[in-house]
């Protein structure tokens, strides 16, 4: 009798352990399965996003390639033209502005600001005073400003600085402050005054990097192309990108005499 009771108790223990092992294994399997499904969904979304982004950029490329009189065209790409893409549409901004800001310009590089309608160069900007903003980063640079007039002659040169980047005299002194323009905070501004009959305003950045801002009460000519492009995938993932392409910039390394 004692031997039977002992056998039954051992069988129960084995069963309990087996059940616990099975439960643990099932938990691991289920967890992995769920993670795999989630990862797959994330990857799929990322793929869709990349596809949408690439499609949006392709739309911009197509706009740039389909220029009409030098101006990029608005384009639409239908559902069948790109795999997995439901639609792409671009919008070329044609309006002018009273304020332009530049990307970050490296030390000793320069920015070519157009005071004429590019590429025809048939009219010249004039109007209110032209304000230049700079010193958007940590260091205070100097700006060398060159104006080329409508006769392709050198009209004027200035150096704007209040730090001793360059020695000499007759510098154009900027005004210190905090000037928020286009999401950028500039610490210096300089009023170039009223400018007319000039073609190009070339600003070279000396001493350190900065963004530049150009502002006036009078609209400037366009300074390049601004194209926005929206793409939607067949799974309704939407991506929208914007490209700002400047008009031709003369590199400083081609413009400044060097030896």
């Amino acid at each position: 009798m004692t031997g039977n009771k002992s056998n039954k108790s051992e069988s129960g223990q084995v069963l309990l352990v087996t059940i616990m092992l099975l439960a643990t294994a099932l938990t691991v399997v289920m967890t992995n399965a769920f993670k795999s499904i989630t990862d797959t969904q994330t990857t799929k979304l990322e793929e869709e996003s990349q596809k949408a982004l690439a499609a949006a950029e392709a739309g911009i490329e197509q706009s740039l390639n389909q220029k009409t009189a030098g101006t990029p065209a608005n384009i639409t790409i239908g559902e069948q033209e790109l795999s997995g893409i439901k639609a792409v549409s671009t919008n070329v901004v044609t309006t002018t502005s009273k304020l332009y800001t530049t990307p970050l310009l490296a030390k000793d590089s320069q920015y070519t600001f157009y005071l004429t309608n590019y590429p025809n160069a048939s009219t010249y900007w004039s109007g209110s005073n032209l304000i230049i903003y700079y010193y958007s980063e940590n260091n205070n640079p100097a700006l060398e400003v060159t104006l080329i007039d409508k006769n392709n002659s050198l009209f004027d040169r200035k150096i704007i600085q209040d730090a001793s980047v360059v020695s000499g005299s007759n510098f154009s002194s900027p005004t210190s402050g905090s000037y928020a323009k286009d999401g950028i905070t500039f610490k210096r501004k300089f009023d170039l005054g009223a400018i007319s009959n000039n073609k190009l305003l070339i600003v070279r950045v000396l001493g350190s990097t900065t963004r530049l801002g150009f502002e006036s009460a009078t609209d400037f000519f366009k300074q390049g192309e601004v194209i926005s492009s929206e793409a939607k995938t067949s799974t309704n993932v939407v991506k929208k990108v914007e490209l700002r392409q400047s008009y031709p910039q003369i590199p400083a390394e081609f413009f400044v005499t060097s030896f």
Partner: protein
Amino acid sequence: MDLSFIKNKLVLPLFALFLLAFFVPQSAHGYYRLCGGPCGTYYTCNSPYVCVGAICLQACSADNCGESRGCSRTCPCTSFAPLAPTNFRVTNTYTNDLPISVNFAWDFLGGTQTCGATGWGLNCSGNNNNFRIEDSGTPLTTTTTLTSASRVTTVNFTTWGNHPSVKVCASNDNFATKTCSSALSVTLTAPTPYPTIVISGSFKQKSSNSNVCYNATSQNYFTVTKLAVTPASPNCITPVCNSLPNSTTAYNFSCNITFDNVGCQTAPNYLRPTPGQNFTLSTTVKDYAQAGQWVDSSSTTCKTASPIVAIDATHPGTVSRGISFNYNSRWIKLKDSAFVKSISSTNYVPAIPKSYDADDDGSLNFIIGKAGSSLGLNIGSYAKFSATNNWGAVDYSPQAQKYKSTSSFLEYIKSKKEHQTITSINNVSTGINLIDADVEINNNNKSIFDGKNVVLFLLNNKKLTFNLTSFAPSGSVMFFATNIDIKGNVQTISNAIVLGDNINLLASTQGLKITGNLIAQKTISNNREVADNSKPSIFIVFNPKPYVDLLPYISSSIYDWKQIQ
């Protein structure tokens, strides 16, 4: 009574007896207390009598000091001075330079005037006297025993001035007693001081390649680091040279040379300057490697000159000379441009620059006209970066840009720009032209650029060579090449931008003017030695027109992407 008998028979013998008493020889040990008889011209005294004061007295020796000899005479206790020398005179013509040797001579008859004869007390000197020259009683010479045959001596005077009472004195008792001659006045006059010699004139700049010479001015001056003249024999000569108006802005100079022929004549050497001698110039100015040289002051050419100038203080006057400094650098001048260093760290502008042509104002500026800044270049001590504004920074460290070599821009062209690849320069057209061949621009093909706005890009390190006198297309051209040679015959390149990694300006005596721009990104070799290197060997006039004409081709765009959604 016949008294004549008495007279004849008595008086005469008595008188003869009386006289005999005087002439009878006396014993050497005996003394006579009586005064002796007269002596002099007709009568002499027998020994031991000596004739003293026309009376024969018994002789005295040095031991008989104070002994009476009758007739109120006693033996003397001191020597009797010798006779005074006579005819004291100067026998030479002496110089003015110390020490002055004056030769004196005198006569001396010997004997003593007072002593009268030997044997009376102390020795009455005959010819054995000592002589010395005295100046107002102060001995000028040591005691000298002279024989009667050589009564001359020389006195070396070591000071100038008047010696009003120079005598020769004779003595026989070591000058306890002496007899002197009559006085001479000896006046020793200092020499006339040499005048200060002045060498003065202008600093000049000489071209290393010719004798072209330009005077420095108040606007074009030198910074003098050393200015001295050194005499061949420097004793007693003090040259003092000054740059005028000062050493920092010097355009004239003056060297005052003092020949001290008076104050320098001191014991023990009594030095004197050599009045006629050569002076060697030693002078340097900033930025000029070679030392300055003497040149004729009036000459407009700086002939090769000796570093020595001959000066004669005995022929005084101002010596006019120039000092030329040889400028031996090749330099580049800019107009309407800005500059940033890519390779060179120095481009010394001469102190006296001259115009390259009518476009060059000849001013002392690295960049003339509407100048921008000059960054990273040392232009020397004299020039400014530019007139008025003088914008620049010698120690500026430019940052390498995106297109720091021609190849980096080529990649951009190939990916972003419309371009054509040509196989012959004759096929060049407006736009970007890529060619994989060496190209020579010469008189035969220069016209193919006319009327076109061309970018010509040489591929694969091919060489572009300019081999013509003048390249001036009616359009605008920009050349990109790894290697660019500009031959010595090229004088002008216009309406063109020349950009190369390595630019070699081959040897020439002519200058080169580029209207457009020049950019050497890695090396530049300027071998142009113009005859007058006061003028720049390269004159670059920045012209914006090619940049505007070629804007679509030589530019890049800035792309700014933003993901909005």
